[in-house]
């Protein structure tokens, strides 16, 4: 063999081995579905309902032997990054779990489900069984991109024992900000060397969960209706920011910035929470001596409405090769029996029939006034459907709110700076808004 052909032979061998390695690494390990069986891929973030979903899928496959579901569990911290990366690579799953918070962001690769929904309206109960506020939240420009499974709504959470011990009547559905402050002041107790401080209310820091409620209830808005300008410098928005700040600095009902007790409501060091999340209900009910309940949010100076309503559910990718099959699975996962299982794990139902059945259950777990949570729907609204909402709120606005909370900025300065920065962002990138 000549000295030239030996290296060539070696090169060819190395290249062949590399190709074999790449093929092996990229080769699917799972057995291919049987002929005539359609595989539906489903991305879902890891959450406590895993067993429920797996049982649902097993039941779906039993009832529909023509389908096989491949669930891909993804950690929550990686979920949206992976999803968008897959979209860029045109490798999206057929079905993915998402929420209306992400809808504008995910819309470019989410399938319009309106035709399916119209065709199967009777079967899905979309027109009859879903709460009207939920129907509105699942639409963007009149089109349906998500079929919801559960909903979170901002509420007033309170500790019943602490109210009893302070001889205070429990919060009513007619409460205003003033009532809330007065009660919280009665419930607040300074700490000493033997006892930690008890706060009448928490103040959720680091994101928009609480301060946006106050901005909206004071009559403010984040964006103009066309989404092209930020309105956080309006007097109404500033009034909302001021109330959020003064809970600590003026009324003394919330811990100073940064000193919010960890898990304060669960540890019974905080008597009330504005906003909250239904995800925590199960945890609350595991604390045996935590006697808690919920009420409609106190009304602000402009209106009672302003709390957030956030739905979570299922979307089908625009590139799905099996949209009909994926839609079958979506319908299965959102039928009343399936939603009842999710609600049994401490979530609010998106379907009226399930909600009413739960409220009729004798001896059900807290909250005692579950109907208040459903009444709050009428005073809640989704976050603005803006494709850059999350980035704008967390990356740009929140830093100014943080600076306000620690006393570096007044509410006026925070609102002005936030609006100016957001508008510069929108101007520079010509961000289109829905």
């Amino acid at each position, binding site marked *: 063999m*000549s*000295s*030239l052909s030996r*290296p060539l032979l*070696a*090169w060819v061998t*190395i290249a062949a081995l590399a190709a074999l390695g790449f093929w092996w690494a990229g080769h699917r390990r799972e057995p291919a579905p049987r002929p005539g069986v359609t595989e539906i891929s489903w991305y879902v973030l890891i959450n406590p309902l895993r067993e429920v979903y797996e049982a649902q899928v097993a039941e779906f496959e039993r009832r529909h032997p023509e389908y096989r579901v491949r669930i891909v569990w993804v950690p929550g*911290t990686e979920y949206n*990054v992976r999803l*968008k*990366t897959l*979209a*860029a690579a045109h490798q999206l799953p057929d079905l993915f779990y998402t929420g209306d918070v992400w809808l504008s962001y995910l819309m*470019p*690769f989410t399938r319009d489900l309106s035709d399916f929904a119209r065709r199967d309206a009777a079967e899905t109960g979309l027109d009859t069984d879903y709460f009207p506020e939920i129907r509105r939240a699942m639409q963007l420009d009149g089109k349906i991109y998500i079929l919801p499974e559960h909903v979170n709504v901002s509420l007033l959470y309170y500790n019943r024992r602490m109210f009893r011990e302070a001889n205070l009547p429990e919060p009513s559905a007619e409460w205003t900000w003033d009532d809330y402050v007065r009660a919280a002041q009665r419930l607040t107790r300074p700490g000493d*060397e033997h006892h*930690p401080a008890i706060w009448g209310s928490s103040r959720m*820091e*680091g*994101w928009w969960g609480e301060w946006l409620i106050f901005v909206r209830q004071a009559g403010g808005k984040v964006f103009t209706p066309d989404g092209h300008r930020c309105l956080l410098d309006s007097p109404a928005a500033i009034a909302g920011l001021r109330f959020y700040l003064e809970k600590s600095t003026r009324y003394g009902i919330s*811990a*100073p*910035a*940064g*000193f*919010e*007790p*960890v898990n304060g409501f669960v540890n019974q060091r905080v008597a009330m929470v504005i906003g909250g999340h239904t995800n925590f209900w199960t945890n609350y009910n595991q604390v045996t001596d935590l006697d808690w309940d919920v009420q409609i949010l106190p009304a602000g100076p402009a209106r009672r409405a302003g709390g957030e309503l956030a739905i979570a559910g299922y979307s089908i990718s625009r590139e799905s090769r099996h949209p009909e099959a994926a839609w079958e699975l979506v319908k299965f996962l959102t039928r009343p029996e399936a939603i009842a299982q999710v609600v049994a794990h401490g979530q609010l139902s998106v379907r009226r029939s399930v909600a009413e059945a739960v409220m009729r259950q004798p001896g059900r777990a807290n909250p005692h006034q579950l109907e208040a949570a459903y009444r709050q729907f009428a005073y809640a609204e989704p976050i603005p459907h803006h494709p*850059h909402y999350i*980035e704008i709120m*967390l*990356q*740009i606005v*929140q*830093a100014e709110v*943080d*600076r306000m909370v*620690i006393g*570096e900025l007044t509410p006026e300065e925070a609102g002005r700076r936030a609006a100016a*920065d957001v508008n*510069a*962002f929108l101007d*520079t*990138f010509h961000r289109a808004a829905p």
Partner: protein
Amino acid sequence: MNRSRGETLWFWLFAGPAVAGLLAFNVWPMLYSLWLSFCRYEVLAPPEFIGLQNYRYLFTHDPAFWPSVRVTLVFTVANLPLAIAGALGFALLLNQPVRGRGFWRAVFFLPSILPQAAFAVVFGYIFQADGGLLNRALALAGIQGAAWTTSPTWALPVLIVVSLWSFGYPMVIFLAALQDVPRELHEAAHIDGADGWARFRHITLPLISPIIFFNVVMGVIGALKVFDLAYAFSVSQAQPMPGGPARATLFYGLNLYQQAFGFFHLGLASAMAWLLFAFIAALTYVNFRAGRRWVHYGD
């Protein structure tokens, strides 16, 4: 075929895969990211050329860019001298002929093999404002502790303190250098009446100056690229947006990551990456120029 041609072929046979890998996975992505830095590219649509708009936005409008530069520079300036001095100090101590020296060397190196995420979680608990270990201890002395991790004033100093625990690698390099310092030079100086400080100042330091220089250069580059500690700290503090509070811990690397993989502004993130690359290259050049004055290579 002549001998020289055969050798060339063998060279490419062995070097070829590495060169191909370098071109495919380093050079090409770098050049592509340079191109992307002049584009609007948000993954779902093809890149769109926008000239210098990304750079202009970063310099004039981006509310997070300059704070992230400031945080990173403050961290670098505060961390580097402390880290170098600490690593050298421990190396000097561990170079002493004490009983169980190997054991102590292992003990002091141990923190460096722990992931930064573990540090962030443990120190997050220690520095927690309400009920954290430090504030409990301060309360025993009648002192009201600060909101260490949730205050924009204290969050960065806390991270600087936490980062100092990873001094093991420069320490080991210093230790190796110290063991290379000829003993006879110390003995001769000692006989001439030089005290310990004089021997350290005039013998040890000049002889290990190339190693100090190496650690400084690597330390500067590492500090400017800090990411994992800041990210783990944000996660341990359950911050919805890494880099808080009020951008107090928004390191440049963290900001870049957020732009690239949080918001998928890959054009903007590429511009940030190239600015960082240019800054590090310039600073390293300055370091090398300045190093000529104080680094002794013994020639």
